């Protein structure tokens, strides 16, 4: 249990946990974005992809469990470290507060973290649990009939003609509310900002960052965050400006 103790009790150990879980979550958000960008193709793609994920069955739960554990550890470690940090700063604050070079992104990690957490819960409630805007939730939409096979890694994982949830429709309907879209945009903006510090920070924590290439790493980080943000902006943005529209007539829903 020596190793366990080193990771969960020492300061560097918990930083490493933050970095490992952060890396898992970054992997997830990249995959999630890439998957969702299929919304710009015909509904077969996103719907087939959603169906494919459902078909993973227990494996989906394994993945979900990994993500949940990562989120829990990430938040636990952040909270524990923050509480210690506040204590370490001592009883008397500086009379004059001054920052030499710490970036705004690094200093607002906690804030951006909270907002992102709130957003994730809302996002799950919105599209996974259907707890908000029930009428556009996938269970309440007509099933979609696959026109073509959905292929994943070259294999036809969802066959043409299969009746699947119309996730494509749900996404577009969901983002038709400017308030929801705006919240979404702000939240992914903050997540990108969170990653602006988190991304190269994890290299530092793993001991892989050095002045030899930290400038390059910084550029990659900024580029990554920008691309990530733009990718996420694209979906609600396209819905709001009307270039992404529901493929079924809205009347069909209201007429049910």
């Amino acid at each position: 249990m020596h190793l366990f103790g080193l990771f969960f009790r020492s300061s560097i150990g918990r930083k490493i946990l933050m970095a490992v879980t952060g890396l898992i979550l970054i992997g997830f958000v990249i995959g999630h974005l890439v998957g969702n960008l299929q919304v710009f193709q015909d509904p077969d793609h996103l719907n087939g992809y959603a169906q494919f994920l459902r078909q993973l069955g227990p494996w989906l739960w394994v993945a979900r469990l990994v993500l949940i554990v990562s989120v829990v550890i990430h938040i636990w470690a952040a909270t524990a470290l923050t509480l210690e940090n506040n204590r370490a700063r001592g009883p008397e604050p500086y009379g004059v507060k001054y920052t030499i070079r710490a970036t705004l992104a690094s200093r607002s990690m906690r804030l951006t973290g909270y907002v992102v957490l709130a957003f994730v819960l809302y996002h799950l409630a919105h599209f996974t649990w259907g707890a908000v805007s029930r009428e556009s939730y996938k269970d309440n939409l007509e099933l979609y009939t696959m026109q073509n096979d959905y292929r994943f890694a070259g294999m036809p994982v969802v066959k043409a003609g299969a009746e699947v949830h119309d996730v494509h429709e749900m996404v577009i309907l969901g983002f038709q509310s400017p308030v929801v879209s705006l919240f979404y945009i702000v939240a992914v903006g903050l997540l990108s900002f969170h990653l602006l510090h988190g991304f190269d920070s994890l290299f530092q924590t793993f001991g892989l960052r050095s002045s030899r290439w930290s400038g390059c790493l910084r550029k990659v980080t900024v580029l990554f965050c920008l691309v990530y943000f733009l990718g996420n902006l694209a979906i609600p943005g396209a819905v709001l400006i009307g270039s992404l529209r529901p493929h079924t007539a809205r009347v069909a829903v209201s007429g049910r």
Partner: protein
Amino acid sequence: MVAANTTQPLSITLRVWRQADARQPGKFVEYQAKDLSPNMSFLEMLDVVNDQLTGKGEDPIAFAHDCREGICGTCSCTINGKPHGPGKGVATCQIYMRAFRDGDVVTVEPFRAAAFPVVKDLITDRSAFDKIQSAGGFITVRAGSAPEANGMPVPKPDADLAMDAATCIGCGACVAACKNASAMLFVAAKVSHLGLMPQGQAERDRRVLAMVGTMDELGFGNCTNYYECSAACPKLISHDFIARMNRDFLTASFRTSFKPESAGASGGAA
């Protein structure tokens, strides 16, 4: 060109943290420091103010200082929120009054951190650093037992990098500047200095685990990669050493957790 500006005397208002001892609460007190030569060092300015206070029978401002050439690491004022004050790569004693303008209000505080309790006024107790050092910041070698110095070549790049880390003067500005009062830069500098040398390999894993463990116990904060420490460091020691220590810690954790232990590790009776 400089001559004209540098002889113009200046006056400033000092806001100094006064605290009688660790138990009593402190507060800021204002003093006027008038007609100062810009070529005076900041600490010399405090000397002058103190002589004036002494003349009035008031308790002079206690501040830590010794070598006054930026190498002993004793001086430790936070000036206008920045440990060691304005300037890059300098200790408090290397700040000159020309860094300020006539009429400035200059706030002077101790280095603040829970692990550095205030002793009096601007003096803090930084013995925590010594405790970290005691935990593993050494290579065990008795006087007389050392092998021939040139018996173990040290690649020049390693020696140079070790020297970069070894320039740490143990002032604690890294802790004072860190938003989390973390001592990572200090510990990383020590761990890296010894860990980069072939001589330091025998105790390398034990050293990093022990020093980090002691650092944690002493109530320092945790590193969040702000890099304020290296910016405030009077020797501009790079936070690259923190990355290096993180890696060292990771590998040491695995190695010590899985490496088999000798049953006779405690040493047999003679």
